[in-house]
Each structure stands twice: as C-alpha cells, then as structure tokens.
C-alpha cells in the first residue's frame, strides 16, 4: 500500500508539472491582455507599459514561467492581478463553498441514483425500469444551466420556497445554509445521478445473474434482502469508481452552477479570472483542481481495497 501511495504521489507531481506547463502556455497564447482588460483600450500606451512592467508581464515568457513554477513549488501561487490577494488565500476562502456544493450534489446524485438504479435492475423491462432509464437519459442530456434556470423559476420565483442565489455557510446558519444549497445541488447532481444510475443498473443486472444470487433465492431469502444485501454491495464497487470520478468533476466543474446561482466558490472565481486574463489566478486554480482530481481518484482506489479485500492496490 505504501509503495502504491508513493508511486501515485510521484505521478501526481508529474501530472502537476505537465498541467502547469500546459495552462501557462495556453494562457499566454490566448489572445487578450490582463492589462488592457484592467485599463480598457482607450488608455495611454505609456500607462499600459508601466502597468505591464509593474506586473512583471514585460519579462520573457520562459522567465515568467520559471519564476512562477519556482514559487508554486514552495506553495506560493502568486497574487491575483485583479483581486490583489494571494491566490492561496483566495482558494482557501472559496474552496469550502465549492466543497459544500460538491458534497451536497453528490448526496443528491446518490440519493436519486442508488434507489433508481437498483429498482430499475430489479424490475428490468417493467414500467419502473423504462421510467428510470428515460429520466436518466433526460438527466444526462439536459444542460445544467437550463435545469438551473427552470429550478430558479419554479422553486424560487414562482413558489418562493428556496433562495435563488447566494451562499450562507452551514456553520453560520444551518437552515439557511441548506436552503441555499438545495437548488444548486440538484442542478449539479442531476447529470451525475443519471450517470451513476445507469452504471449501477448495469452492475446490478450483472450481479443479479450470478449463481450465488440464484442460490440465495432458492434458499428462500426474501427478494428485498437478495437485492439490497447480497447484490447491491457487490454492484457498488464499479459504481464507487464512477461516483469518485463524479465527485472530482463536481469539485472542478462547478463553474456554470456557481455563476447561475451566484455562489462565491472556486468555479465562479475561475470564470471571472479567465475573462479578465488574471494569469496567476487561472494558473493557480487549474493547478489546484488538477491536484484535487488526482487526489480524489487516489482516495477512490484506496477505498476500493477497503471495501473489497480481493482487490490489492
């Protein structure tokens, strides 16, 4: 296990280095300029040059990259050009919000996907199965910005049951905090619920065909026990992988949901920083997301071994 972890940590370092190179190059090759985004195009070129020098953007690109990488290795991701704060501090302030949203979304996804996937497999070919698969297809196909707007219109504007935007930390006000998370979590969780549901249904169908299930049934074990106790546990292993991936994507893919629901998380921060060409902030967030994604997957691999002792990491 220790060797495996070490190996994965080394590969994490390589992935991060590659990601840093790619994101740095992409940001520099993209058209646009943070200085002009700050000043507008009707600005004195002398002032533009002064600000460019002040931000170190007049140095050769390789020198900029080397400097940034050396700082990043020491844990210093630089200072945001627009927000004038340390990138690390901004991530620390915004990440708990995104984490809360991702956890809530995963809860929504699993709460929908698990019963739907299991029952769909259990009643294969029946009405419940068709409805579940149809809903699953709709969930995967529906763009989340559209679903978000529908939820805002119905539960926020029409019924006025839930807030349509903003964020209240659960630690500050649990009820308001949960209320603010419900609609964005449904929006983000729906697409992943559909994916997890389809994967779980497939695994369940596979497991339900196994001999030990037939034996359990022959012994007269109630169908509910066969389904939930014997089959579900084994069917969960591949589902766990998909859920792990989904969680990683949720953490790194909250941009649209955070913008629509005005949630001050890492996703919205990334969106704004791309528009303003805030190089250090974009680079820092992308690097952070890459690390997060790799770590979540590492965690899933470790969980794998814990759940199923036959699997050795």
């Amino acid at each position: 296990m220790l060797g495996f972890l070490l190996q994965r940590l080394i590969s994490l370092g390589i992935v991060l280095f590659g990601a840093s190179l790619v994101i740095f190059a992409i940001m520099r090759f993209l058209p646009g300029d943070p200085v002009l985004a700050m000043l507008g195009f009707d600005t004195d070129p002398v002032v533009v040059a002064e600000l460019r020098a002040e931000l170190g953007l007049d140095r050769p690109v390789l020198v900029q990259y080397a400097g940034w990488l050396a700082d990043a290795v020491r844990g210093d991701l630089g200072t945001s050009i627009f927000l004038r704060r340390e990138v690390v501090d901004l991530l620390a302030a915004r990440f708990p919000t995104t984490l809360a949203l991702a956890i809530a979304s995963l809860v929504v996804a699993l709460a929908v996907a698990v019963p739907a996937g299991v029952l769909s497999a259990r009643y294969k070919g029946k009405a419940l199965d068709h409805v579940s698969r149809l809903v699953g297809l709709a969930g995967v196909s529906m763009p989340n910005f559209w679903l978000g707007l529908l939820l805002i219109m119905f539960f926020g504007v029409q019924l006025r049951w839930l807030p349509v935007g903003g964020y209240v930390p659960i630690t500050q006000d649990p009820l308001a905090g949960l209320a603010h998370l419900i609609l964005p979590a449904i929006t983000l969780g729906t697409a992943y619920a559909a994916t997890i549901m389809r994967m779980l249904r497939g695994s369940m169908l596979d497991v339900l065909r196994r001999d030990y299930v037939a034996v359990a049934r022959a012994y007269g074990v109630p169908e509910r026990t066969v389904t939930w106790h014997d089959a579900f546990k084994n069917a969960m292993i591949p589902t766990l992988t998909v859920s792990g991936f989904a969680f990683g994507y949720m953490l790194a893919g909250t941009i649209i949901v955070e913008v629509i629901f005005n949630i001050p998380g890492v996703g919205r921060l990334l969106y704004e920083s791309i528009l303003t060409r805030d190089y250090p902030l974009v680079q820092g967030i992308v690097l952070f997301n890459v690390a997060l994604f790799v770590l979540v997957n590492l965690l899933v691999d470790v969980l794998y071994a814990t759940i199923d002792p036959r699997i050795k990491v």
Partner: protein
Amino acid sequence: MQRFAPNRRTALKLAGAGAFGLATGLGWRPAFANPRGDGFLTASILGALPHLHPWDYSNHDFGALPILTYSNLVYTAPDGSLHPEVAKAMPEISADGLVYTFDLRDDVVFATGKKLTAEDVAYSFELYLERGRRRGDFRAFMESVTIEDTYRVSFQLERPWSGWLMYLTKYMGLLPAGTEHDSIYDTIVGSGPYMVTRFEPDVVIELEAKSDYYMGEALQKKIRLVRIADGATQLANLQTGQVDIIGTCPPKDFAPTVALPEYEGAMIPSAGIFYAPFNRQAAPFDNVHLRRAVASAIDREFICNELYYGVVTPSTLPAAPQEYWYDEELAKVHAYDPDRARFHLREAGMPNGFRFTATIPVPSAYIEAQEAAIIMQANLAEVGIDMRIRQMDFSSMYAAAQNGDFECFPHPSMQPSIEDYLLAQSYMCIAGKQYMSQPCNPAYDEVMAEVYLDNDQERRRPLLIEATRKLVEDCTSVWIGRLNTYHIWRTGIENFEPSYMYAMDLRKTHQPS
C-alpha cells in the same frame, strides 16, 4: 361499489401530494427562502467588486462604491449636472480655460478623522498623476496643482478641457495627504457618507452611514452591495426579495416587471453608447464612401426598439435625441436608407458591394452586441455588403482594438461623458494615443478646443454641432444609439433614480423600515 381503503404506502403518497398541493396553493413561503429584514438596503451590481480602491476600477458598476465612500471637488448628479461637493461652489475658470480655482469647505472630515484641506487635494492629484490607473488622461492636460491657502486650491491646465471636472467625479476620490497608494485597496480613507464594515472581494460589501458626514448623516443606515454577474439572476433575486435594487436585467424583462405594482423602475440616457468605429487606416474602410454605405444601411430603429426593447435610444449621432447638442438635420445624413447606401457603394466603385469583418465582444457589457450584429448583417446584405462576424471576449477585443487588428468594431461602451470624453478620444489629434482616433482632423481639434473652454451649454451647443458635423462627414463610426441606464427596485424604496454616469448613486436612497 368498491370501498377506498388505501394501504400505508398509498396513504403516505396521498399525504405528500396533499401537502405539496396545499403549500403551493396557499402560497407557503418558508422564512429561509428570503432571510432579510436585517435593516440593509441591498443593491446588486453586475460588474466586479475586486477591492476598495476608488481610482482603480475596470467596470462602471464598481463606481457605486466610491460614490458612497469618497468625495471629490464636484459631483455629478443623476441627471448629469455638476454640483460642488467638497468645494464650496463651482470653480472660478480663467478666460483662457486654463486655470480652475476652488474654495473648499472647512467641515469635511476623512474616515481617518483628519480634516480635509487644500494640501490633501494637491496630494491626491499628484499621487493620481503618478499612480492612478487613468493617469494617462490626466497627464495629457494637467500641468500643476497649487495650494493657494488652507482651503483654496488651483489647477493649471496645459490645454483647455472643461470635461475634466466630470471625468474626475468618476475616476477620482480625495485622500488624506500622506496616504500610501497601495493601502487603499483594502481600507477606506475617504470622506464620503459611508464606511465599509464588511468586504468579501467580488462577493459583497456592507457599508454603514457615518455620523460625521459633512452633508449630514445619510437616512439609510446600512447598505449592502452584492455582486451578481448575470442580469436574469439579478431579476430573480429582486423577485424573491433577496435584493432591493438591481443594476440590470434582460432588456425584454424591464417593461413587464416595472408594470407590476411590487416594482418601480426608470430609464434615462447614460454616458454610454452603442457604436461601431471603423479602422480608417486600412482597406476597406480607408474609403469614406464605404463607411457611409455601411452607416446608411443600418436600421437603428429596429435594433434599438425591437431587439433591445428601448434600453438603447436610436441615434445616428453621438448625441442622444434629447440632448442639448443633438442636431436633427445632421441626424438625417446617415439615417437608414438602403438606396443611399447603394449610392455610396457606386461612388466607391463597388456597386455590387464588398466584404468586411465586424469584431464584436461576446459576452458584451450592458447589452449583447451579438444580437445587433446579426441584424446589421441582414441589413447590409440587402445592399450587397457581406459582413462577417468575429466574436471575441472583451480582453482580446481590447488588444485587437489597440493593435489595429479590426475593420469595424460594433460594441457598447460606457464613457465618463460623451461630449467631454468620447469626442476628445474619437478624433482629436492631441488624443493621438488611440488607434481609433486616427487619422485625426486638425480642424476638429480647433473646434473642440473652443468647446472645452468651459461647461456653458448655450455657448458650447453650436460648437459641438460643428464638431459632430466633421465626425459625420468623415463617418468615423456608425453611431447606433445611446445606452440608457435602467434599474428596477422594490416599491417603497425612496429617493432612488438611475444616473447619467451609470453607476448607482445610493447616497440619498432610503428604505423605510
């Protein structure tokens, strides 16, 4: 007849459906859906709220903050008129338009507790010339600042530009002498009516009224500015009561929303404009007839009224129809007339039309240029002009404009002032720094120098019309319309109106408890 005897599961389902139906029908609204009643007047703004620095902003919504926290020599009222602020009266201006002298109030106190004097005014301007984001514009005309006595200060200009007073009210903010430039990114030191009590960058700013404000403590004790980066989301927040005043909404929603009794709204011309400057230094638009052909082929009425639901007022001139320097005869020169467009194409030797690329920002600010570009494309196709659309984000667009990498550039733009700023930047040789102002016209400079001697509208009117004539003759841009400032607020909010300067002015706004 079979008796209805539901089992436990059916009973639960029925109970759930009944509860949902009742909640929906009776209009049940849980308290957590709208956690308000905290004494704050909450306004949402579209642009970023990255820091607290009064001079350093890259979007015009941000201006709502410096208006509440800093003071200037003069201020611009919502209707666009100038009034003294820390000055006792409007300045004395020398006959040559080069010296402006201000007498200052003696009761102005900074947030630091220090009383404002001429030394602070001089310090602020000198620091601005050295570090202010817009220092280029100031450097171009400002020569020196002189402390005449404790409460009297004068400014020597290199050339006349009366527009600097209005410009200042947008991009300035007086500081106590000795303030470190970088410290004001995080701290408010101004002498405005409010102090910041909470600040989360780009999320929320909360402010509290200062009891020692020199014009009297504000009626509204607490104000909250929240950043909501989408117009439709702003409207949803207003409809659910999470916000009291919104900075914008989709244009189509403005009229239906303000027609409801729960809301009020207003729309006034702002210092913003929707226009399409040409790159006159390269083909095809180095040919004036081709510029005129494009200008005559655009149906501005349709774009502004049908597409933007009136939030843009159509105008073929830089002036809005209701402004003192608008000229009806001049407005007819490039009014929508496909036959005249064809005439100009023939004059240019291209009777069958030509092809060009319009660079548009996506997403745009204020209105979406993309929508108008599609109508423009259709209008131009009618006369044989093939307009291709190149979409760019704002940041890339700025770079393209600066480098001359464009042919025509339809975009909405907010200015400190149209006649006092945009006209100077558009065509004056002494502006010189902007690609779009070239090639310039020295005769235009002469007229504008006279315009900028002072702010007397009666004297300026014929001169501004003369300057506009030169712009129209040379057809430097297609002027499509003037952007309006429009806001919606909850009924019951008092003393709020949209402002010519676009940024919300909440200094006198009040929400009765």
